[in-house]
Structures are given as structure tokens and as C-alpha cells.
């Protein structure tokens, strides 16, 4: 196989990893105001199902980006400068999402948490929609000039096919997130996530099928009917499994649907990486690629490291395989921005030499003060 083909496949694999893994943690973030509307404990159950893994999932994107830069610099340059505004919005969304995960629990305050929840929700919805818009545009083809520069402008990206693509990724991630939550949480959240998944699965089936058939008929080659068929079968299993609350099967089905969608997208492109309206201007695996030497080096690196990544990421999922329930959620470890009241901080109770007892007294008084809404 040509090295350029190998790298086309590897980048498809990296995007598959990203969309399948980050797909469900986008879904969890998107569902925060829906399934988590009742109370903070429910929201914390939801966030903690993905707590240990969302960061590792996001690295699949950075790797896909870095691999595109290394293997197909022309593709990277045209895509990133051409899809400037959508990528800007995705970046802003990812930034607020990352800090919200880590900072949310640091301050024990309802307004603080509400803002972090908003950042998580918006930060999950925006990329969930825009990745679909971006990929649908690549499938559809864009206006490139003879130098392979994107000259179509921003508004041209908002065509019906691309917008429907955005709806597809949003629905897929929403469903994927709901079935993940049904699989990974316990109690009330699990129940409601399962019910919601059963409700939206038929909608996801209809919209995804419509887009996939459109993509297949208008832009793809014969063999990707296989991917469309696989997606349809997986979606039918998904509808059935969510109705029967077969949580494991439902998750497998939604994951396979995303895999099939990536196969359809990349299958329709090959051997182009970015088809142009004028086929003479298209970026292909050949004219966008790095040299054979660079591809050879990167192939060795990828072959050596990717199995390791799968191994330790897989191990992480094993370590955190248990369901998260409301009973397991500890009291908030966050502080309040208001400082501990001076009397409670231990000045009065701590004397030189009374060591442990004084410290313990200070501690109790302190935590009392932080629990009070207005300490001073």
C-alpha cells in the first residue's frame, strides 16, 4: 500500500477515535441541563462518569491535527485557514469546556457551578454541531483556487447539506452520550438517560439516514453503500436496544454508527482529501502529502505508539468501569471565595505546644464557617 494511503487511513482512524470517544463526553455535556436539571448531585454524577477520561479523549483531536500537519501539510494549511471562523468557535468552546471541568468543583457556590455548567453545555454543543458542518462541507467539496486556497468564504459553509450534517453529529453525540450515561451511571440518572435515549434514537435514525443517503447519492462511490448499510443496521439496533434498555448493546450500536459515518465520510473523499468544485484544484492524498521520508518516519512512530495508547487508555476505562451513583458523590471539596472567619481560622484555639488538638479544633470550626452561606 502507498504510504499516502496508509496515512489517509491513519487519520481516518484518529478521527474515529476522537468522534467515538469525545462523542459521548460531548453528549454528557450537552445533556447536562436536561438530565441534570433537578439538582447538583445529578449533574455531578453525570460529570463524574466522564471525569477521568474526557481529557484523554480530547487528545485524539490534537493527534489528528498534528498527524494532518505532518502527513498532509497542504490539507492542514488549506483546511485550517479556510474554515477559520468555525474552527475559532470550536477552539473557544473547547477552552471554556476544559477549564469548566477542572474548576467547577473548586468553589462551593451555586452561581459558580451554574456558570461552569453553562460553559460545559455550550462548550459541548458548539463543537458537536460544527464538526458535522465542517466534515459535511469537506464531503460536499469546497471552492479551492489553483493554489489550493479556500476562497469560498464563510457563508458558503452554511449550505443545507452541511447544516444537516451538523444536526447529524449533534444528534449522534446526544444519543451516544445518553446511552453512555445509561451504561455508566446508577439510579435515577441511569433511568432517565435510558428513557431519553429511547426517545431520541428514532429521530437520530431518521436524520442520520437522510443525510447518509444524500451524501452517498450525491458525493460518494459505490462501495460506501456498505458504510451506509452498516450505519442503518447499527441505528436499528440502537432503536431496539434503547427501547429494551439493553445498555451495553445500545452503546455498541451508537459507537458503530459513528464509526460507519467516519467510513462514509473518508470513503467518499478518497483519493481526495479536500475535493474542490473544480476537480483540477482538488487536494489529493498525493498533492497534499509530505515526502516519503517523513511519512516513513511517522509510520514507525505511529506503529510503535498507537497500540500503547490503546492499551493504557483501555486500562483507564477498566479501572473506572464501575457505575457512578448519587450515593458515591462526596460532599463538595470546594472552598468559598469568602475567607474563613478569623475566629474560626484557629488563631484563638491554637497555642504553641497544644499541637494536634488545636489543629483539629481549628479544622472543625473552619469547615463550619465554610458551610454557612455567608460566613461573615
Amino acid at each position, binding site marked *: 500500500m502507498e504510504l499516502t494511503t496508509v496515512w489517509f487511513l491513519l487519520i481516518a482512524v484518529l478521527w474515529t477515535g476522537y468522534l467515538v470517544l469525545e462523542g459521548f463526553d460531548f453528549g454528557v455535556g450537552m445533556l447536562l441541563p436536561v438530565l441534570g436539571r433537578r439538582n447538583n448531585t445529578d449533574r455531578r454524577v453525570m460529570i463524574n462518569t466522564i471525569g477521568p477520561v474526557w481529557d484523554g479523549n480530547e487528545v485524539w483531536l490534537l493527534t489528528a491535527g498534528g498527524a494532518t500537519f505532518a502527513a498532509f501539510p497542504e490539507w492542514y494549511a488549506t483546511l*485550517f485557514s479556510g474554515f*477559520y471562523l468555525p474552527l475559532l468557535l470550536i477552539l473557544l468552546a473547547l477552552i471554556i469546556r476544559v477549564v469548566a471541568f477542572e474548576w467547577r*468543583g*473548586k468553589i462551593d457556590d451555586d452561581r459558580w457551578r451554574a456558570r461552569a455548567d453553562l460553559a460545559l453545555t455550550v462548550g459541548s454543543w458548539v463543537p458537536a454541531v460544527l464538526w458535522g458542518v465542517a466534515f459535511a462541507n469537506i464531503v460536499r467539496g469546497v471552492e479551492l483556487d489553483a493554489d489550493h486556497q479556500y476562497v469560498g468564504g464563510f457563508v458558503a459553509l452554511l449550505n443545507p447539506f452541511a447544516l444537516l450534517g451538523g444536526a447529524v453529529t449533534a444528534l449522534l453525540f446526544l444519543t451516544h452520550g445518553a446511552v453512555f450515561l445509561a451504561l455508566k451511571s446508577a439510579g435515577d440518572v441511569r433511568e432517565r438517560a435510558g428513557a431519553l435515549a429511547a426517545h431520541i434514537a428514532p429521530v437520530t435514525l431518521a436524520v442520520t439516514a437522510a443525510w447518509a443517503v444524500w451524501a452517498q447519492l450525491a458525493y460518494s462511490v459505490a462501495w460506501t453503500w456498505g458504510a451506509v448499510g452498516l450505519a442503518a443496521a447499527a441505528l436499528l439496533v440502537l432503536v431496539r436496544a434503547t427501547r429494551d434498555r439493553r445498555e451495553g448493546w445500545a452503546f455498541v450500536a451508537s459507537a458503530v454508527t459513528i464509526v460507519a459515518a467516519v467510513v462514509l465520510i473518508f470513503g467518499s473523499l478518497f483519493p481526495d482529501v479536500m475535493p474542490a468544485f473544480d476537480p483540477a484544484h482538488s487536494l489529493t492524498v498525493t498533492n497534499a502529502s509530505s*515526502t516519503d521520508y517523513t511519512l516513513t518516519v511517522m509510520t514507525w512512530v505511529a506503529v510503535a505508539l498507537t497500540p500503547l495508547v490503546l492499551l493504557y487508555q483501555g486500562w483507564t476505562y477498566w479501572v473506572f468501569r464501575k457505575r457512578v451513583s448519587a450515593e458515591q458523590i462526596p460532599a463538595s*471539596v470546594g472552598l468559598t471565595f469568602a475567607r474563613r472567619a478569623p475566629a474560626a481560622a*484557629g488563631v484563638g484555639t491554637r497555642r504553641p505546644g497544644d499541637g494536634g488538638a488545636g489543629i483539629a479544633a481549628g479544622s472543625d470550626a473552619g469547615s463550619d464557617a465554610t458551610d454557612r452561606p455567608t460566613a461573615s
Partner: protein
Amino acid sequence: MEALDLARWQFGVTTVYHFIFVPLTIGLSPLVALMQTFWVRTGDEKWLRLTKFFGKLFLINFAIGVATGIVQEFQFGMNWSEYSRFVGDVFGAPLAMEALAAFFVESTFLGLWIFGWDKLPKKIHLACIWAVALATNLSAFFILAANSWMQHPVGAILNTETGRAEMVDIVAVLTNPTVLAAFPHTITAALLTAGTFVAGIGAWWMVRTVRRGDVDLARTVYRPAVVLGTITMLVAGVGLGVTGDWQAKLMFVQQPMKMAAAEALCESTDGAAFSILAIGDLANDCDGVSHLIEIPGMTAFLATGEFDAPLDGVHDLQAQYEEKYGAGVDYTPNLAVTYWSFRLMIGMAAGSALLAVAVLWFTRRGRVSDNPWLARIALAAIPTPFLASAFGWIFTEMGRQPWVVVPNPNPSGVDGVWLLTARGVSTVVSPAMVITSMAAFTLLYGVLAVIWFKLMHRFAVEGVADSEHDPSPEARTDDPDDPDSAADRPLSFAY
């Protein structure tokens, strides 16, 4: 302003901002790992308390470093697509390696460390934070290898047909003498940042607890943190000086214009002096600079090890560059920025040095101190290494202008591979788009900086917890095989 200037400003703002958080992440991860190692080895609870205390600060900081790092990888393609086309064959490789070899390890094992306290055996949990520490340092290596290639292209040739650089030797790229000097310099700077941070916060708390009368707490918990931070500062400080000297000597060979500009050395001179204070006009005219305080022969000595060695000045270098790369381009970087950022980078080291001396004096032979001056110096010293790093990057990146890939007509670099910054900017991105993204990033970054500071401050003034129970599975008293007791037990950590 044109798209070029805006794109440069955006790169400067987002990169300097990103690098506020990165050195603390790089430096603090091994220190937190060390604290946890002490706890696992000795079972001494104070090290667990310190691990948790500095671990929280580490995590608050880590999040914003990761978030702002995503922008860095996308920005090359968004604002600098022509640069990306030119260098992608070479420059993309270390970036992809960084993601595959370092980012995956860092993010996955950090997740295991944060959430795994009560799930993983003690030693495996400890190995997770060490994996994070090694991976953050490894990622620094790959990104510096990429940057060093821009400073000093090696292992590549120019394909005259496509007009692009092509990699011919990955080993040369990864063993570029520039990265071999820049990497230890950056890592020691990060360790100085983290050492100052730990010693600074520890010393402030030590003074505070002694003044509250709790000498015991100051002695048993805060003093060991101060000692650990100060040892780190001392080791890192020596390393920083050695690697800085090494790097400077390399720069005089590889980028003579950058160093001539840093010294505002206009004419080629034998035994050039080191300028300590100079004033110039704002027209970037070298002859308009007057040197007020100088150390004779010092620049020549720093550059070559000999006090009377000859060095090229800005004027001669400009003439040489015009001959080689064409007239009509000003090959002189901004003199004021280069001159002052170089001096401020070095000068900021005084902050950490002062704190180290103060700590060594006030805590000599097992003492704890309630001296308010120690607390003041501690607080004042904490930001100085952050500023030094920022000035260091401003110096090294502004000093190579007008080049984005610097030509290296010297024995160790490849000839023929170079690119002017002006030629690297995206051609399809309008000034309005760059203004939009720059405004969005600046605004968001401003807000996040305020929140980051408030959180770091709040958790720092909270102090070390009065006690921490051992959360490890080994210390558990209930039956780990009994599913009922395991299911309902609250997690030791949750968001």
C-alpha cells in the same frame, strides 16, 4: 494594521499567555510527584497533606495550560497557512510525535491520578503522577525541537521545484544543537518557577503559622516544603546559568544578528563590552543608541570565552544579509525589544535568588522564622520566574525577526532553507477575521486569567489541610470484595 501584524500580535499574545501556565505545570509535576514519593516511602502524613495541597494548585493551573495549548496547534494552520505549507514536511513531525508520545500519556495518567486515589494500589497511583511529570517534560522536548528547527534548520533540504522544505534526517532534527541547549534551559526555568512557587508559598505560610503561635505546624509541615522548594531553586538556578551561557554561545554562531541586537552592538568590534544600561531612539536606528553603563570585554567573553574576540555588529550583518538574501529588507530585529527583553529575562532571576538567600538565612540550622520580610520577599519572588520566561520567549522570538525560519549559513545548519515571517501568513484570511479571533481570544483569556488567579490565590491562602486520611485501597478497612460496601462508599475524589 495588516493581517500580518495582527497575526503576529495574536501569536505573541496567545503564546506568551500559554507560557504563563506551562512552566508551572512542567516544574510542579515532578515536585508533586516527589512529595507523594516521600509519603509512600515514609508513610509520613505531612507529605500526603503537601501532595494534596500543591496537587490542587497544580490541577487548577494544568487545566488552563491544556485549554490554551489547543489554540497553539490550530493557530499555525489558521493564521500561518503559508508557513505551514513551507515547513509542514519537517515541522509537523515533532508536533505529531508530541501528541502521540506525550499528550496521551499526560492526559490519561492525570485522569488516573486525580480519580484513582482510592482505586489504584499506592505505588501504581504514584507511578501515574510520575508518568504525568515525565510526559509534560517530554512534550516540552518535542515542541522545543520544532521551535529550534525554526531558529536553526537542520536535517532538511529545499525542494526547488515546490519551493518547500523537506525533511531528510529526523535524527538531525531531534538532536539539533539548538534544542539540546534550549530544552535544558527551558526545563531548568520551569523548575525554578515551580521551586520559587513552592518555597514562596511555603515560606509565607511558615511565617504566618509561627506568628499565630503554631511553631509545631510551621516546623513539621511548611518548613519541609520550603526546603524542597529552595533545593529545587538552587539546582535549577545553577542549571539555568550554565545552559543559558551555553545557549548564548550557540546563538552568537547561529543567529549573530539576534545577539548583536541584544547588545545593540552597531559596529563590528574586538572585545565588545556588555551593555548594562542604554537608551535609544524609537526609530530602531542602531546608531541612535547610547550605552550608559558597560562592562568592557564582557560580551566578547560571553560569546566566545575570550575577552578580546571579534564580533560582528548590526551594520555589517545587515550588509551581509542584503548580499545573501536581497536588498530592501530590514534584517535588524526591533532593537529596544530585543535589548530589554534579554536583560529583563536575566534580571528577573534576582527575585528567586533573593528568596533563596533569605530562606537559607532565616531557616538556617533547622530554624523556623516569623520575620515579616521573609513573607514579603516570598510573595514578591513568586511572579518573577514567570516574567523571566515571558521575556525569554519575547527575546528569542522577536530577536529572530524578520525571519520565521532563520537562515543558517554556518557549518552546523543547512543552507537554503529559510522563510521571512511576512511570507508565512495566511493569504486567504482577512484582517477582519484576525481581529475577530484576536479580540475573542484576548477577551476570553483576560477573563480566564482573573479566574485562574483568584482560584490559585484562594487555594494558596487556604493552606495545607489539618489532616488527610490515607485514601489508598491498602488502607481500607472494609472488605474490598464485598460489593455492597464498595458500591455505596463515597469516592475519595469527584468533580
